[in-house]
């Protein structure tokens, strides 16, 4: 009996050893490779695009740089894989990329396929107004009822989405973003309803011309995605992002946030860590 138990123990310890050998260690792989392979897109400022000098730029890109800096102490050690939105999950699953940071909305459904990191931005819809226009705030527009016209990009439930914030507003749906902005510029619409990130970027690109009505709704969380089953890797990325938003790398995160969205994120309170509340 004793022998049997010993034999079983030997076999099980062997299994443990061999399964540990099989366990991929993405963090170690990335370190050994000497660069981080990041999946993201191009052509979507302020998220991911090529700037005038042809370099990858945008908030997603900066988030990836924070991770690379955390690994190598050097945020240039990145290879960007240009991928469409529909390739975000497949490229993670098939190990084509170590991480995808590409304005990916967190949903429980997607979380069955990939692991999401902690969020680095919360997207929503906001109202863009012209500076010195008829309305100044969301409240004023709500009070004005059906006297208000809102332009929006034609999309699924676009009208319902606007009505969540302005139940009585007239909604004009346009087929392209530039027509939506033109409607606002020409006074055809009193406000344009668009993603808050796009809205802030647009305000920043056109200083003194537009204002934010100061109301955001329809929240969506943006996180990076990594392969399932790589808990160490996920923990590492989470730590890097967490410290960028609350700790030693806050200055980097805040500078990037301000660069792309025109506003500074709230300072982490010193003393008791706020996220533990």
């Amino acid at each position, binding site marked *: 009996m004793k022998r049997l138990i010993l034999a079983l123990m030997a076999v099980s310890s062997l299994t443990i050893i061999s399964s540990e050998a099989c366990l991929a260690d993405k963090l170690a792989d990335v370190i050994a490779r000497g660069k981080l392979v990041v999946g993201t897109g191009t052509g979507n400022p302020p998220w991911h695009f090529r700037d005038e000098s042809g370099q990858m730029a945008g908030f997603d890109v900066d988030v990836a740089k924070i991770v690379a800096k955390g690994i190598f102490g050097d945020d240039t050690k990145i290879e960007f894989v240009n991928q469409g939105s529909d390739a975000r999950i497949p490229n993670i699953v098939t190990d084509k990329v170590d991480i995808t940071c590409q304005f990916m909305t967190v949903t429980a459904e997607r979380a069955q396929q990939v692991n999401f990191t902690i969020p680095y931005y919360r997207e929503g819809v906001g109202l863009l107004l012209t500076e010195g226009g008829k309305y100044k705030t969301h409240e004023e527009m709500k009070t004005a009822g059906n006297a208000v016209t809102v332009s929006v990009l034609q999309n699924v439930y676009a009208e319902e989405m606007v009505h969540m914030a302005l139940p009585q507003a007239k909604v004009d749906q*346009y087929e392209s973003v530039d*027509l939506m902005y033109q409607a606002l510029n*020409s006074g*055809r619409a009193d406000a344009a309803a668009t993603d808050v990130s796009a809205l802030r970027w647009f305000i920043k690109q056109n200083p003194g011309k537009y204002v934010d009505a100061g109301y955001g709704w329809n929240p969506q969380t943006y996180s990076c995605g990594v392969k399932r089953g790589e808990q160490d890797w996920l923990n590492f990325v989470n730590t890097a992002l967490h410290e960028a938003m609350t700790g030693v790398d806050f200055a980097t995160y805040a500078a990037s946030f301000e660069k792309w969205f025109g506003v500074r994120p709230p300072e982490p309170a010193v003393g008791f860590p706020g996220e533990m509340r």
Partner: protein
Amino acid sequence: MSYSFNFGVIWANLDTFLLGLALGLALAFASIAIGTVLGLVCAFASLAKGRLLRTVVAAYVTFVRNLPLLVIVLFAYFALPRLGLRLGKNESFIASLSLYAGAYLTEVFRAGLAGVPRGVIDAGLAIGLTRARVSLYVVLPIMLRNSLPALGTTFISLFKDTSLAATIAVQELTFVARKINVETFRVAEAWLAASFLYISTCLLLAAGLRRLERRFPKF
């Protein structure tokens, strides 16, 4: 091809499609009515003795016929408010399409006028009709009869042009098809349904115009 058709969404949204079609027809009728008046006036004016009037008409026709309708529509909708003239989106589209229709119809009526035999005009004058009455009772009916075939083509073409109103958020048939398309991803079904409605409406319009043509007395 692995596309599987499902026309359920079309039936479910049939009322929206038909409303879109009705709006398109209303836009077309209004524009055709205004454009026809404009075209008639310009066609007769182009025969005027005064050089100025002829030049104005020629300039109008040349200018408008060489502009894409979409450019006119966008100008009227987005640029005119900035220049101080603000029409509603339907009115702005009707104004654009009327202006466009007017230019084409001027040419159609001018061709019709050219086909009125000199002899009947002289005959009218000979029996003591005034010039105005000759124009109204002699020239106009013959010209209309001459113009009918080309008129039918132009009307149908103008009806199809209402699809451009979708660009300025007018909820006509093309807008509806695009909306259903975006909302349900039944891409083929939405455009097929729109095509079917456009074709059948145009065929009906053509049949109506042919009947009209037959009922017109021949000269």
